């Protein structure tokens, strides 16, 4: 990397040589009126700026403006929601301008991989979501900004914990065991996907307020330029930049202050028996068993109430955007603090961002420097307490002042020692475990785009990126905590850990663009090289609590490790347009990864796309109702190499820890273990075929698109059983299996009503996706049932799902329950599906799956004068959930546990099925979890011209997670894994926000 660091220096030198030249000036006055091209109404509030200066003005209530400019200057008219227009001022005194709403958007510039394209010229399935469309409210994870906005993109927040991540799937995911996460590219820097220790989610380290747009590349013709990491789609994140344009213009800079004050509440808790009901049930079910009844207490404790709370949070962000001399900049500072609804859970985050994007050498060299720093301090509430609260005996008090375990009531043996197998006091789990982490992250890049002086059609682009994070944390548990108790050697825990991650990038591209009028064609060709290095190291030291004097300081686990991988790539793209309406794109990427052996390291990923702008055909001129119509056809091959381990192809040996050493003679030997590996491992490959139509009606008052796609993944990177004895473990990462996804996406946006005071925008999208495994083994074995997956709570190792050929991934694999005439399930009685007279494994069948058949999204925005009202919601249809909470906690056997002995609480609906012994694998527990969720409702009011200045104030009131309509009786129907046990509840949030610009 030294070489690259030197490169950076050279380029900075290059920058410092350059100085801007001043222009000679001659002033004149221009006036005029700005109107809306779609309806002719005047447009107030339009920014009229002199390009490359800080001069500008705003149109008044009637759309009129006056501005003094220099002859030859360029005026830029811009307004949110409209396409900006530029005019060079020669002699005209009056300039009336009509702006067309930008929803027409054909000229909207989309960021794509290693470049950008006008939307009208795009050949792939590309969708952008920008600031104005973002979800509002308390957003700690940037992905929530675009939840529900885009067809084919599912964003499922993982839990209600502060800073928790989201599971994101673009078109359902193309892998089985390798990652199904899309590739994230932040300002041109692809970031590692393996998380940062000490945060619940790596993306939540990005301040949502710094984000300008998300661009989602969905089909292979768009993503294949990212080659080996593109199979699950690509999300390009662009952060806000400094600007000389559209920033209020009469002032050198604009300050923007945003604050949100949030109240978090718990929409619902799980229903378990209260103390009285529990006493009654135990007395009934265990009548006569004196030793059992003697365990009952006389309290009434709601353990969920003891560990959960309603909390507050806030965030403040301030940014300055403007231009210093000719140096556009944006600087921002953010601070956020949230308390989780689980006691002790807390997140504090400070972020700073700086962007400089000067243009040098007569605009030949454009430089874009981005730096973002983030510091977070987090205490993690012990999430294990959520499950414990569901099981803890409600007849027991919270505290027992006199006991030796911190004063928390605990199940004890006669000896006074805790009962090891019994439920731990949930509050003690939280309050006696101090788990904290500090994370620092720097994410920055320097991009240089140089238009050759000697050949302006040729541009060189260099992007240097660095993503660095450093985390430190520790866990402290006192020796008297029952869950860390060790009578002999002293209990407690004192562990410290740290992690450093460094991800370096060097991208270099050359682009050549030319018109070929003789052929009625134009083309551009890009060639590039990319080098990326990912390195991660960390250490972990765990001892028992040093406070427990007199005991051996037991080092039970130490580890320090470092690991790295490299990606080196060459890529090219050709765009070719004929007659301005037939567009062709070809891309090719050659990727080399250090994760694979030299013989299998290089993968080739081609794509081809064709778009036909039907609207521009001469014979369409008379079709007035249609305002745009484009057909897109794309094909491409993409790869996947994200399997966690960095050396799956190498023969390696691993040392054991001390605690896994072995006695030979009189010495304990640390052992050395050979690891399983596959010399032949390589990428998995996904072929995608996409057919899309973009359309618009009535001057694009209504517009949308339909995409149909089919994706076949072959040589799946799977972690599967290999033939016994053939390798050094029974499971290895290898390429076996095929998977197929197909679906339809439909998006429609409309503006049913627009006038001066009132406008309404509404958008709707729908996705149908179906996946199916088409091959799983190295050779065809019709009897092979598949790979069991989906571990559940209850027993050890029980699984409820399966990957089987011909079935969707993660299908539930269950017995068919038999019911009595009253509709009550009969315990232990299942349908003998294969009719062999006995109920065996062979009677399990595939029944439903966690993924929805249909995903719907709706969003609406109403503006009335200074008021606005926004809502967005989502629906999933045909998604099923395994109610693991009921299957495990709604049985009578659970009440009394002889291994303690102790008592455990059960679900309030225990009598519904009335099972004594758990029937984990019954399809009785597979429940339809279709839902509609209203995610977001915001009411806002904007004060323009505050205090007779240009200051602008916007006040909002938002509710997130407003309501859910579902027939599923559990806590929350939206469970990505499909297995519902003890979720950290998603919160309902009430937010008051203010945004001040001045």
């Amino acid at each position, binding site marked *: 990397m030294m070489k690259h660091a030197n490169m950076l220096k050279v380029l900075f030198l290059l920058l410092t040589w350059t100085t801007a030249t001043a222009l000679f000036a001659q002033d004149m006055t221009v006036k005029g009126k700005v109107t809306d091209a779609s309806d002719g109404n005047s447009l107030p509030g339009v920014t009229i700026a002199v390009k490359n200066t800080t001069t500008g003005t705003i149109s008044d209530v009637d759309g009129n403006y006056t501005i003094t400019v220099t002859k030859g200057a360029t005026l830029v008219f811009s307004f949110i929601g409209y396409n900006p227009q530029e005019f060079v001022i020669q002699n005209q005194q009056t300039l009336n301008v009509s702006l067309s709403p930008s929803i027409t958007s054909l000229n909207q510039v989309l960021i794509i991989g290693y470049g950008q394209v006008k939307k009208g010229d795009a050949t792939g399935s590309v969708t952008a979501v920008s600031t104005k469309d973002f979800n509002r409210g308390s957003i700690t994870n940037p992905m929530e900004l675009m939840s529900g906005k885009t067809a084919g993109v599912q964003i499922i927040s993982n839990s209600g914990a502060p800073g928790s991540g989201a599971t994101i799937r673009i078109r359902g995911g193309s892998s089985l065991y390798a990652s199904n996460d899309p590739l994230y590219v932040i300002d041109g820097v692809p970031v590692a996907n393996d998380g940062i220790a000490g945060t619940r989610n790596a993306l939540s380290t990005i301040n949502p307020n710094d984000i300008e747009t998300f661009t989602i590349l969905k089909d292979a013709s768009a993503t294949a330029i990212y080659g080996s990491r593109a199979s699950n789609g690509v999300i390009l994140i662009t952060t806000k930049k400094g600007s000389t344009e559209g920033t209020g213009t009469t002032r050198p800079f604009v300050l923007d202050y945003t604050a949100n004050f949030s109240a978090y509440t718990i929409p619902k808790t799980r229903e378990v028996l209260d103390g009285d009901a529990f006493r009654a049930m135990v007395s009934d079910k265990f009548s006569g068993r004196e030793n059992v009844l003697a365990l009952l207490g006389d309290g009434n404790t709601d353990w969920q109430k003891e560990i959960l709370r309603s909390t507050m949070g806030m965030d403040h962000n301030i940014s300055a955007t403007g231009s210093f001399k000719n140096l556009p900049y944006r600087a921002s500072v953010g601070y956020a603090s949230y308390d989780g609804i689980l006691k002790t859970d807390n997140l504090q985050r400070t972020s700073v961002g700086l962007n400089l994007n000067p243009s040098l050498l007569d605009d030949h060299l454009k430089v874009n420097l981005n730096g973002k720093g983030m510091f977070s301090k987090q205490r993690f509430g012990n999430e294990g307490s959520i499950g414990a609260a569901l099981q803890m005996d409600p007849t027991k008090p919270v505290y027992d002042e006199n006991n030796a375990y911190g004063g928390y009531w605990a199940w004890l*043996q006669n000896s006074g020692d805790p009962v090891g*197998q019994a439920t731990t006091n949930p509050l003690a789990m939280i309050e006696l475990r101090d788990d904290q982490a500090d994370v620092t992250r720097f994410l920055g890049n320097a991009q240089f785009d140089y238009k050759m002086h000697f050949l302006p059609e040729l541009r060189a682009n260099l992007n240097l990126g660095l993503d660095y994070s450093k985390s430190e944390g520790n866990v402290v548990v006192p020796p008297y905590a029952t869950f860390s108790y*060790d009578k002999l050697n002293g209990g407690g825990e004192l562990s410290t850990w740290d992690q450093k991650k460094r991800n370096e990038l060097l991208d270099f591209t050359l682009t050549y663009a030319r018109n070929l009028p003789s052929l009625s064609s134009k083309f551009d060709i890009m060639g590039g090289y990319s080098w990326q290095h990912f390195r991660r190291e960390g250490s972990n030291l765990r001892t028992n609590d040093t406070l427990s004097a007199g005991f051996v300081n037991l080092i039970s686990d130490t580890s320090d490790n*470092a690991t790295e991988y490299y990606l080196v790539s060459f890529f090219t793209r050709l765009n070719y347009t004929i007659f301005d309406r037939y567009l062709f794109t070809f891309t090719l990427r050659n990727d*080399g990864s250090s994760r694979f052996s030299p013989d299998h390291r290089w993968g080739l990923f081609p794509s081809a796309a064709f778009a036909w702008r039907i609207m521009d055909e001469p014979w369409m001129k008379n079709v007035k109702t249609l305002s745009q119509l484009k057909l897109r056809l794309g094909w491409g091959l993409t790869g996947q190499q994200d399997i966690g381990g960095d050396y799956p192809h190498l023969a390696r040996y691993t040392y054991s820890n001390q605690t*896994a050493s072995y006695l030979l003679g009189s010495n304990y030997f640390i052992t050395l273990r050979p690891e399983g590996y596959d010399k032949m491992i390589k990428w998995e490959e996904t072929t995608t075929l996409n057919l899309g139509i973009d359309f618009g009606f009535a001057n694009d008052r209504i517009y949308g698109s339909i995409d149909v796609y089919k994706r076949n993944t072959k040589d799946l990177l799977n972690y599967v059983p290999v033939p016994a004895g053939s390798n050094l473990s029974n499971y290895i990462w290898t390429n076996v299996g095929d998977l197929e996804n197909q679906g339809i996406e439909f998006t429609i946006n409309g503006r049913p009503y627009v006038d001066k005071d009132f406008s309404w925008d509404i958008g709707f999208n729908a996705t149908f996706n179906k996946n199916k495994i088409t091959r799983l083994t190295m050779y065809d074995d019709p009897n092979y*049932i598949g790979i069991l997956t989906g571990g559940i709570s209850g027993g050890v190792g029980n699984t409820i799902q399966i990957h089987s050929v011909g079935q969707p991934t993660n299908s539930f694999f269950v017995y068919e329950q038999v019911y009595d005439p009253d509709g009550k399930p009969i315990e232990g009685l299942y349908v003998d599906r294969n009719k062999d007279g006995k109920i065996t*494994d062979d009677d399990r069948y595939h029944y439903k799956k966690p993924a929805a058949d249909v995903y719907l999204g709706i969003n609406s925005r109403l503006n009335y004068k200074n008021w606005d009202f926004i809502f967005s919601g989502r629906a999933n249809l045909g998604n099923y959930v395994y109610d693991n909470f009921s299957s495990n906690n709604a049985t009578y056997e659970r009440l009394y546990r002889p291994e303690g002995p102790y008592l455990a609480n059960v679900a309030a609906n225990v009598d519904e099925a009335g099972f004594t012994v758990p029937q984990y694998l019954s399809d009785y527990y597979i429940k339809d979890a279709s839902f509609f969720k209203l995610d977001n409702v915001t009411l806002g009011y904007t004060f323009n011209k505050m205090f007779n200045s240009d200051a602008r104030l916007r006040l909002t009131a938002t509710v997130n997670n407003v309501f859910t309509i579902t027939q599923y009786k559990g806590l929350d129907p939206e469970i990505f894994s499909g297995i519902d046990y003890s979720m950290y509840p998603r919160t309902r949030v009430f937010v008051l926000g203010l945004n001040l610009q001045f």
Partner: protein
Amino acid sequence: MNKFRNIFLILTGLAFIVASCTKDLDTVPLDKDELTSAQVYEKPEAYKQILAKLYAGLAVSGQQGPAGMADISGIDEGFGQYLRGYWYHQELTTDEAVIGWNDQTIKDFHWQTWGPGDVFISAFYYRIFYQVALCNEFIRETTPEKLDSRNVEGQLRTDIETYRAEARFLRALSYYHALDLFGNVPFVTEEDEVGSFFPPQKSRADLFSYIEGELMAIEPLLVAARQNEYGRADKAAAWTLLAKLYLNAKVYTGVEKLNECVTYCQNIINAGYSLEPNYEHLFLADNHLATNEVIFSINFDGRRTQTYGGTTFLVHAPIGENMVPLDYGVSDGWGGVRTTKAFVYKFYPDATSSLRLNPIPPKKLKSTYPLIYVPGSHQGWDPANTATVLASVLSDGNYEGYLWFPANTEFKFTTGPNWDENYGDTGADGILDPGGDNIIAAEEGYYKINVNLNDLTFTFAKTHWGVIGSATAGGWDSDQDMTYDAATGMWTASLELSAGEMKFRANDGWDINLGDTGFDGILEYNGDNIAIAQAGTYSISMKLGVPDYTYVIERGSYDHRAMFFTDGQQLEIVEIGDFTNGWAITKWKNITRTGENGSDLTFPDTDFPMFRLADIYLMYAEAVLRGATNGSTGDALTYVNLIRTRAFAGESNGNITGGQLTLDFILDERARELYWEGHRRTDLIRFGQFSNGTYVWPWKGKVPDGTQTSSHLDLFPLPSSDVGANPNLQQNSGY
């Protein structure tokens, strides 16, 4: 132009970087705990560390201990541990054990309803082949050519050659388990490369020959019997495995090889092993001391060899309900494993449900109570003598105790161990007087003495104790007298008791009687009857003197291998999931011979004796009874009676006669001697009683009383996942 020159330089630089960066793709692990195969064998010490892993593969489940960095995947780590998997297959499928948990298909073992999709079966299958693959790797890397190429010479080379023979032994051991459980299995040796190929299937008979050949081949290379380091295999280990192969040869190949079995048993017996005198010691935290008997063991350590399988499972899983975990050296129980009545009957043919079994262990005194002292002529007028005191159990001024007085004993009471405050009885009116006259007991005898310091009254009365109850010859009508032993201060009796109940009482009446409420070994006045589960000769002793009053009822001669816990347990298994159904077993413990805990309360120090002499004795006897011509029935009887004598704590009343030494007896004796040590399934199959109807036990075939099952169950199925992955595999018939 400078600019152009710089751009040119940049482009040239980039071209250079592009070329050099593709070299970046050749990475090796950065972690110092992770080495490439080439780096490993540069280190002389690595050979023994890899050998240690081959052994550790039987003990731990991964490189982290107790869980983490698992060796095999697809199953919970603890379940995937070798010994636990082996134990499940060999014990849960038989009369010796049931397990109450709801883990996946675990109850299918006892019900004998398993199928090829069973996760436990596939986990142990893969564990076997994991072990084989590890051994292959080591054998492949220690060929003479490879050692030459690395210039390994001298002592290290000699050592490695022994290690290599041990690796071959360990591979043979795992292949033996494959042979016994799965029969016809995939076959891989060091000749095969690591990869993803389809190993060929070897028939059971061919595998038998292979293992036999391997063991023969390594016999000369292994260290002499009893001469290797603890935990490592020697010649005797190989002989044991050969003896086991041959004893079961009929099952594996259809051909008896009994003489060969006897030969190898004799080799072992002649190598100088002897039975550990105390059976219980073989299963304790310090059982590594029993090297006189143990031929090959899997070693565990509470601090350094941690797992959730192995003896961690064997100690924790059978503890539940009324059992006190600390009595077995662990902090908690897992409430899972018990046994069936069919097995209990091997020891107690007349056992009935829920009766407690004797002997009762003596309990420690609850606490110390306030005392007063009884100096007198019986003890030399010494008020400081703590043997002659009375105690106030309730600390309420009422003192009681029992003392032996010779005739015409004179005595007084003192409140301290001195004469400062002393009481006599002037006037013999039963009222105490400070400094009063001596009290006189005219008759010799055992006196119950009560003093009330609140009102200064006292009584003393002579008692003579006996035993009464339905368990005694006199029933509830007449006492069986006990005798007082002045030397020990105990009342004792040796009686023939039948199953029933009994109490202690004084003076042939009910005025003063003692029972045991709560069955804690401490006697209470008018306490509950004491249950006697088994007929037999008992020695009964009772110690009164100073409270607490305790007693011990010991069965005179009985089989000490019967280690049951029955309090709160019922013999009948109605619900397999209910821990109280079926008697609990206390064979495996994490306490030492001296009663100390192991080094950790979660992970026992207890090793697992995989091969031990008693097994060899029984194998010898069985082979002779089955018709081996190179052994003698006289020796067979001697060996069996050595085992019996140990079982009966050195007494000969458990010994059998030549006429009693039958094959049926051997099968039952193997159950009594070797239960819960992983032998039962193989034994039942050899005797044809595993699946057929000649012998059934509760819940065999998933019915409460047990029923015949299909003979295809004598072999486990190959896991469907391997049949799916390897086209060379033919499933065992019946699945």
